[in-house]
């Protein structure tokens, strides 16, 4: 057993070039990471500079923007008659979102409980892909579903009380959209709960229901809350469904049978619209985008922070 030639020669590669290329690679990878920061800066810069065109206008006041209850940027060609109060758009957004949450939170949570606590491996292997397929359905398809199926059915069952475009059908479609997200994030949170807790509960004579609802869910609560928040911000930012199904009239009401233009719906409508570029009305879309961005950003931020806290607690 003689020493192999390659070890006798001991001709090793010089490490100098390696060190240099390593540096270059690290720098280029760091640049990749910087890109994400640049994107955030880009978004904020764009929103600020473009919405300045709106907020600088004499027709607009900050307090009016935040408190007025009429939004007629698309309806009023004449700036003097235009009303810029974000409240109706917010109300539309929250109406749709609320309906979506009423659908997706309980359904998503209970499905998650089922998946993590009860379902056999075989059922899981069917149910999980199904949920993933729903998660992968393009939102424009769900929008189509909303105007083609949900809205007519609602009108049929309510004897015409719902208008063609209404907050409910959009909300239901958005709810379907959020369901897989709520479900998979909550399930992750519940699976992270250590087995020992469940064993402890069963050991005390708890039924499966009591174990899951009184032990597992509270233990995973922060994760579940963060799932809710993330789904909430997803619902707020959802665009195509509301553009197709929620209607184009900003309304300040609680009636879910009525049209409800949302912030995203307004942005799409304004982009598609014939309103002239450069007008205050046009720039108002950036003011709406700022509001939208701020709300979703805060939601996600809080959701992320809660999620991180929770993750650390079991590691």
């Amino acid at each position, binding site marked *: 057993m003689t020493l192999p030639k390659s070890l006798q020669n001991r001709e090793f590669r010089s490490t100098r070039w390696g060190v240099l290329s390593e540096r270059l690679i690290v720098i280029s990878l760091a640049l990749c*990471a910087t890109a994400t920061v640049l994107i955030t800066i880009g978004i904020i810069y*764009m*929103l600020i500079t473009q919405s300045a065109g709106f907020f600088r206008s004499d027709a607009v006041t900050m307090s009016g923007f935040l408190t007025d209850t009429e939004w007629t940027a698309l309806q009023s060609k004449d700036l003097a008659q235009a009303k810029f109060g974000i409240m109706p758009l917010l109300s539309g957004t929250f109406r749709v979102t609320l309906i979506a949450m009423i659908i997706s939170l309980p359904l998503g949570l209970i499905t998650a409980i089922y998946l993590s606590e009860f379902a056999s491996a075989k059922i899981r292997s069917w149910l999980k892909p199904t949920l993933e397929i729903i998660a992968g359905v*393009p939102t424009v398809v769900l929008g189509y579903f909303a105007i083609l199926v949900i809205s007519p059915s609602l009108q049929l069952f309510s004897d015409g009380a719902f208008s063609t475009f209404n907050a409910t059908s959009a909300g239901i479609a958005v709810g379907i959209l959020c369901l897989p997200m709520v479900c998979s994030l909550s399930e992750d949170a519940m699976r992270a709960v250590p087995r020992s807790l469940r064993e402890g509960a069963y050991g005390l004579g708890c039924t*499966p229901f009591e174990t899951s609802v009184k032990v597992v869910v509270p233990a995973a609560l922060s994760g579940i809350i963060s799932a809710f928040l993330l789904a909430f911000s997803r619902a*707020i930012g959802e665009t195509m469904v509301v553009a197709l199904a929620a209607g184009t009239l900003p309304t300040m009401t609680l009636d879910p049978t009525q049209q409800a233009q949302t912030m995203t719906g307004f942005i799409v409508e304004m982009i598609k619209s014939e309103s002239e570029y450069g007008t205050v009305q046009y720039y108002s879309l950036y003011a709406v985008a700022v509001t939208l*961005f701020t709300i*979703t950003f805060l939601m996600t931020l809080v959701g992320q922070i809660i999620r991180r806290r929770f993750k650390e607690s079991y590691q």
Partner: protein
Amino acid sequence: MSSMPDAIVKQDAKYLADNARRRKRFSLWFYFLCVAIALISVVILIFLMASIWSQGHSRLSSDLLTRSHSELEIERSGMWPSILGSLFVCGTCAVVALPLGVGTAVFLEEFQPTNKLLRWIHGFVQLNISNLAGVPSIVYGLLGLTVFVYMFNVFGQIRVNESAGMEIMGYKHFYQVLTLEPGHVVFVPQSDPTKRQTTFDEPFQAVDPDGNSIEISIWTPGTPKPSDPAIRRQTVRAGAIGGTITERSWYYFRLPFDKSFLSAGLTLALVILPIIIISSQESLRGVPSSLREASMGLGATTWQTVRDVCLPAALPGIMTGAILAMGRAIGEAAPILVVMGAAVAKSTGPKHLMDDAVTMPVLIFNWAGRQQDEFKELSAAAIIVLLVVLLLLNSTAIYIRHHVQKAQS
């Protein structure tokens, strides 16, 4: 020693039994509720598919896959250009987002910072990425509009007859002149780039379709008009005006990008970048650190470790994430509406980098809103095509994950 508390000593056996039975029953009900609700999602999916299938299956024909949108022959409209368009847009998106996303994930996961400031920056970048994942896609659309389509107007505005922005490569300017032969034009290389049009009174040199130089003669009205088509093709009327046209190679490149598939692809890349980063990070995190130590212990540098050990081990996970992200990109409509507009009457796929395109979701959006029943059905049929594509993508992802889980266990 204290005696046992009363609560334990004075147990009512009947109550206990009832209580246990009640709780068990309740638990059973809850189980059924769970099953029922979990089934709801399956029912929704089946209902969705069924309603779309019943609307659209009659329109699934070769016309749908091979022809383009038509206002005049609605019943024979198709989605071929939109399939090409989606391919190009998502291709661009993948080419940009994948390396960028995986690179960022590698940087964040494998090159852990050593000092406090860097660690803070690291955490900030991390949080920032999670937040970017929550930004509505329409906001990315607006960003794409400002950054890619107009580029803050830094490179000038694109104006017909005047300015094509800052052209960089892949273009040749010609004057296009109508000849005496109807429908036929000859091309004269543009010598002076500032001159947008020119008048021809003297015989001149032009290029034929093969790029060969040909002599073009002038016909003055009043003199006998040549009748041989071959001669007429090489003859123009005195005073004929040549307007500029640009021959664009496929790699035609200019700034700003304007409403091109490139802009749309880059915008979509922004949308899916956070998703790719997060999923790649998760799969890198799944690589056991013992492998890293082993590689480092053998004298590999961090990058060599990443290249030879971590990336290959994390590849299935990264690919799954990337495929799911691409599924999102293919189905995304809002940012594309903002960046490229809602026009769908394009009969081909993009011909050069700066060409616009129609994508499947935008076509569906357009068709779904139309009045004619044909369009409504076509849109359902287009949805079926899109869903089949997505289903293929998703099942690939699920297959990869399943396969790897098995191999690793």
